[in-house]
Structures are given as structure tokens and as C-alpha cells.
């Protein structure tokens, strides 16, 4: 059950495949060899750095340091969520909403898993908390950015329909409901596809990693199932949070549709 330990020469041999890609790029004039080299170097440097950081964090096992690392990861994910939609809310709305939704969904899902299914001692043991938060964040980030993009582009596209409903005495909740629904649906479809295709199209990454690391396949499968449920739950929570927070930003105390809170540049493009 012990993992086969990789040595530097092992990695160097695999690295020769990157060199092969580089040779192909030159031979076929793909013009990619520079980018390829930079990407490969970045991969190594970034991962080695993360490895050292994780080693330090695991060794210290401080709850505050662990929380700090998770919060930094959440802040970076929040920025990603904010950057992906084409439309921008004014006053850093995208970022505030993205970071809050991501934090809420990730912390809730991770803490639930750590205190019930996985139960390390202590429950905040960074060896479990940090990688778990990381994998949940990836999925939450996807769900949140899809939902925010669908909401913000949809509100511009369906402006006349929403305002028609308001003008006839409908509440902002009634007017926005179809859009809110479709934004959340759009965010959940990828994870639903991922769950239905798991094991058929590809072996999911976590499972593959754990089998390679020496884990018995049924154990690895159980882990994968647990993680997929966590990812689906996290995505759902993030999508709902982002959509409702976003919809609230797009209205005011008189239940108007406030498209003036989307940035000028974005408005010009859709006019």
C-alpha cells in the first residue's frame, strides 16, 4: 500500500516529453516552443513553492495559519469569479459578490465534510483541510462564475421583459425569477454532467491519484463519491449565493431594475 516514491531522474525522463513537444513545435513551425518552455517552468516552480508552503503549514498545524491559507485561496478564487463575466457591476460589485459567495459555499461544504465524513483529529488538521478546500474551491469557482455571467448578461438581454413586468405592477422578485432560475441551472449543469460521466468517459482525477498512490480501488472510489457530492453541494450553494447577491445589487428599495450599476463599457457593447 505504500506509494512508489518518485525521484528527480524519474521526473527528468517524463520531462523529456516536454522537450519532444518543443521539437515538434520547431519542426512543424507551431511557434509554441517559447510558451511551452515558460509554462513547463512555471508549473515546476509554482508547484514546488506550494509543496514547501504546504509542508510548512502541515508541520505547524496551527488552526489560524490554516484558516489564513484557505482565506487567501478564497480571495484568489473570488477574483477569478469576478473577472470571467463580460459585464461588470460598479463599485467592485463582481468581486464583493464573488468572494462572499465563494467563501460561504467553500467554508460551509469543507467544514461539513471535515466534521462528519472525514473527521481527522483535530478536524481542522491542515493536511486534510487545505487540499479539501482547494478541490471544493475549483468547483465552486466554476459554478459561481457561470451563474454570475448568466445573470449579468441575461439581465441586459432581457431588460425589456423585466421592466415590462415591473411596469405592470410586478415585484422585482417576479420579474427576475426566470433569469435567476436559468443562472442557477447554468451553473449546475457542468457538475451534473461530471457526475453522470464519472468512470465512463475518464477516471476522475482524485481516484486516479489515490490508486496511483497505492490505495485500494474501492476505497478510492468511496473518496471520489464523497468528493463529487461535496463539489455538487458547493457549486449549488455558490450559484445560489452569487445569483441572489447579484440580483439584489441590480435593484433598489423601490424595486427598480438598476442597469446603471453595470459598467459603462459593458452597456455600450450591448446597446
Amino acid at each position, binding site marked *: 500500500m505504500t506509494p512508489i516514491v518518485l525521484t528527480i531522474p524519474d521526473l527528468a525522463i517524463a520531462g523529456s516529453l516536454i522537450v519532444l513537444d518543443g521539437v515538434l513545435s520547431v519542426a512543424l513551425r507551431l511557434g509554441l516552443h517559447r510558451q511551452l518552455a515558460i509554462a513547463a517552468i512555471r508549473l515546476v516552480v509554482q508547484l514546488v513553492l506550494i509543496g514547501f508552503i504546504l509542508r510548512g503549514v502541515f508541520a505547524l498545524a496551527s488552526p489560524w495559519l490554516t484558516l489564513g491559507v484557505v482565506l487567501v485561496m478564497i480571495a484568489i478564487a473570488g477574483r477569478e469569479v469576478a473577472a470571467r463575466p463580460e459585464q461588470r457591476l460598479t463599485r467592485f460589485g463582481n468581486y464583493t459578490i464573488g468572494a462572499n459567495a465563494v467563501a460561504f459555499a467553500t467554508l460551509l461544504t469543507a467544514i461539513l465534510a471535515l466534521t462528519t465524513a472525514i473527521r481527522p483529529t483535530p478536524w481542522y488538521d491542515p493536511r486534510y483541510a487545505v487540499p479539501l478546500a482547494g478541490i471544493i474551491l475549483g468547483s465552486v469557482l466554476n459554478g459561481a462564475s457561470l451563474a454570475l455571467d448568466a445573470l449579468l448578461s441575461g439581465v441586459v438581454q432581457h431588460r*425589456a421583459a423585466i*421592466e*415590462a413586468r415591473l411596469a*405592470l*405592477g410586478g415585484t422585482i422578485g417576479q420579474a427576475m425569477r426566470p433569469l435567476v432560475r436559468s443562472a442557477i441551472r447554468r451553473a449546475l449543469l457542468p457538475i451534473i454532467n461530471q457526475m453522470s460521466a464519472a468512470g465512463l468517459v475518464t477516471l476522475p482525477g482524485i481516484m486516479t491519484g489515490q490508486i496511483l498512490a497505492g490505495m485500494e480501488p474501492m476505497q478510492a472510489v468511496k473518496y471520489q463519491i464523497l468528493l463529487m457530492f461535496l463539489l455538487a453541494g458547493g457549486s449549488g450553494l455558490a450559484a445560489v449565493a452569487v445569483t441572489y447577491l447579484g440580483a439584489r445589487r441590480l435593484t433598489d428599495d423601490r424595486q427598480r431594475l*438598476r442597469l446603471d450599476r453595470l459598467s459603462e463599457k459593458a452597456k455600450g457593447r450591448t446597446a
Partner: protein
Amino acid sequence: MTARLRIANLRSRIAGPFELAVEAGECIAITGPSGSGKSLLLRMIADLDPNEGEALLDDRDRRRFHAPEWRRHVVYSAAEPGWWGEQAMDHFPASEHARVLGLAERLGVEPERVRDSLARLSTGERQRLALVRALLLDPPVLLLDEPTGALDVEATACVETVLRERLAGGTAMLVVTHSAEQADRLGHRHFRMAQRRLSPA
């Protein structure tokens, strides 16, 4: 005599201030070049755009209404109406279908068109069905933005007949129109909008 609708010092960042009092049964026609602020004024009165100042319905301050309640009484119908359903009938309460068909027919829209896909209707048919949506609420105030902009002479006459009946029943109206003739036919008073200011014509 108290006005049905009164606005005082109504202004936004980009338009106004506006002063206006409309009696029950009175129609105010507003003309003016495109972009002069006609739609802005109607949207401000309906509280669809941020604005300051006073608006009163039968002497009751707008701030004492919930926003949706205010808009149900002071109904704005846009020049290019929006739709959220597949067919026109999706936009009416099921209990009102008989009235919808009756009103549509009076405005010159064939009853079966109401159940057709909206994409298959002409601009003029959609415009009249949007008007049906507003009329169905029996609001005390109607704010109509070019209600006959896409209609031929015959259909325009149908619409004006129905609007005149509503006026006789006590509805107050603000009608934005590009046609000076329509302003004369319908309007008891006629205002001109220029550079986001309103003045008697």
C-alpha cells in the same frame, strides 16, 4: 378640485425638474424630438428610473405606496414592449382570458393571434397586445409611450376609440406621440419636450 396625478419638482440626474397636474379624464399629449426626454419623464413618473421630487395619486404621496402597488396604479406602457413568455396569452392572468380576447378584438387584433407565438406577430399586433396588458389593470393613470407608433390609420382609430372611452371613465393619461394630429385628437392639453424640459405647446 384635486388632480388625479400631480408631479412637483420631479427630477433626475439627467432630466427635469417637471411640474404637471392631470385631472381625472384628462389626456395630456407630449410631443418632441427623439431623445428629448419624453420616455424619461414617463419612466420617472412610474418610478422605473431613480428620481427625486413628488408624485401624488389622488393626493396620496407616492412614497406611501409600495413600488409595485404604485406601478399597478400608474401604469407605463413602453414604446417597444417587452415580453417574458412564449405567446401573448402567457402574459395575462388565466381568469381574464375572456376580457383579453374582447379587448384585443376591439383593438383590431384577431383573437387567435393571442395564442400565436409572439415571434410570429407583427410589431403592430404586439404593440396593441401590450396595450391590452396595461388596460386590463384598469389603472387610474396610464402613461403611454407612442401607443400607435407602429399602427396604420385604421388600427390607430381603434386604439384612440378605446382610449377615449377610458378617458370618459375617469382615467388620466399622458400620451407621448410623434403625431401632431394625434396630439390634437386625443390631448386636452399639449406639451412639448425639448432638452429634457417640458413646456406648453
